[in-house]
């Protein structure tokens, strides 16, 4: 959470994250080029680097894509989410190295402009086995560039969250283009079944985790709750909420996080203003509801971030009766203070 913008708000966790990432990339590339030069003794260093960076980018894209659903399934993976942007930008750089080397090696030595050559050197669009796979990779690279260039809170704030979110959902389009690029490119020439099996396994993990996490979210959305006479909805028992934590309920189609802290109960929207993180899966730290994704904070009774920050989420009217928590499903304005309900 930041009030002014810096290029990167470094802290110890981000440094450790990036060090582990750089070490992993170095080891991967060294192993790939080293083993590749032994197994394919005829391959040039340029070819090994093109394939090494391409494989690295594909592997990193799979990791980037599974972090989200893993965190929905278990909070143990939240440390991976914290600095996912750096992983995404580094993945783009690996893809750029792959694309740059490829364009130079295969398209830069003729008379045509290399970028034009990518599109006109093969026009067999009707053939699956000879399909021009390189433009697919180039389109994916353009999407990854747009995402990497806007992976900063400055752009999140200036594009506004809905536009930024839509732009970054294009990662799935980029994934589809890259999988097609690999299937119609290298996997047409390299017939070793292990390569196809590895790609299939990667796809199965990405889609399997997304669908399992999505199914769990759907069940939560569809829970039916009993309404009291005055439209207040019975959400849970007071005893069911751990201290300084929340229970999450879906009311009128939207999720509400009901927090218990210091003998009081408050309800705010479950959706963080930063990147739609699940506030109800966070906890109260220093008197503030703290988003588990990136640490954005809100006061539980008003839904407003403490000064000088300006983020606000809607609050909900609440009361406790017979040990049960009852919530009015109609949200108040973002930042509107609601008197917390005493536990007893």
């Amino acid at each position, binding site marked *: 959470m930041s009030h002014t913008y810096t290029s990167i708000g470094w802290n110890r966790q981000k440094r450790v994250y990036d060090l582990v990432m750089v070490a992993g990339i170095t080891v991967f590339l060294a192993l790939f080029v080293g083993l590749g030069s032994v197994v394919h003794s005829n391959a040039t260093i340029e070819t090994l680097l093109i394939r090494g960076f391409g494989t690295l980018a594909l592997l990193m894209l799979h990791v980037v894509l599974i972090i989200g659903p893993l965190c929905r399934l278990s909070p143990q993976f939240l440390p991976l989410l914290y600095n996912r942007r750096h992983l995404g930008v580094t993945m783009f750089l690996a893809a750029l190295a792959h694309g740059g080397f490829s364009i130079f090696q295969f398209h830069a030595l003729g008379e045509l402009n290399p970028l034009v050559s990518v599109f006109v050197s093969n026009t067999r669009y009707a053939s699956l*086995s000879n399909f021009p796979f390189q433009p697919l990779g180039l389109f994916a690279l353009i999407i990854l560039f747009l995402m990497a260039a806007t992976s900063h809170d400055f752009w999140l704030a200036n594009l506004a969250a809905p536009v930024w979110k839509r732009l970054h959902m294009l990662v799935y389009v980029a994934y589809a283009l890259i999988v097609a690029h690999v299937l119609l490119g290298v*996997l*047409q020439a390299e017939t070793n079944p292990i390569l196809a099996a590895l790609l*299939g396994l990667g796809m199965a993990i990405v889609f399997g985790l997304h*669908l399992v996490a*999505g199914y769990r979210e759907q069940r939560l959305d569809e829970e039916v709750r009993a309404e009291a006479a005055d439209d207040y909805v019975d959400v849970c028992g007071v005893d069911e909420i751990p201290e300084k934590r929340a229970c999450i309920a*879906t009311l009128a189609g939207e*999720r509400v996080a009901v927090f218990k802290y210091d003998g009081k109960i408050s309800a705010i929207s479950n959706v963080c203003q930063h990147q739609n993180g699940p506030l109800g899966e966070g906890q109260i730290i220093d008197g503030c509801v703290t988003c588990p994704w990136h640490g954005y904070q809100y006061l539980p009774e008003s839904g407003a971030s403490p000064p000088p920050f300006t983020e606000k989420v809607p609050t909900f009217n609440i009361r406790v009766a017979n040990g049960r928590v009852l919530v009015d499903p109609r949200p108040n304005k973002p930042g509107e203070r609601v008197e917390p309900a005493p536990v007893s």
Partner: protein
Amino acid sequence: MIRLLRVRHRWMITLLAVTLIALFIASLVARKPAPVTPHIPEALIRVEGEKR
């Protein structure tokens, strides 16, 4: 609003999974057979220095 996004996201992932699995199978089926070393009849192989 957020719920709608979640529903849309689920549908998008399902559609993408079906499309890519179909492409995966089709691309492997359409793959050209692996190149093999051509069998050349011995009679056609000329040893260097040997007269025809």
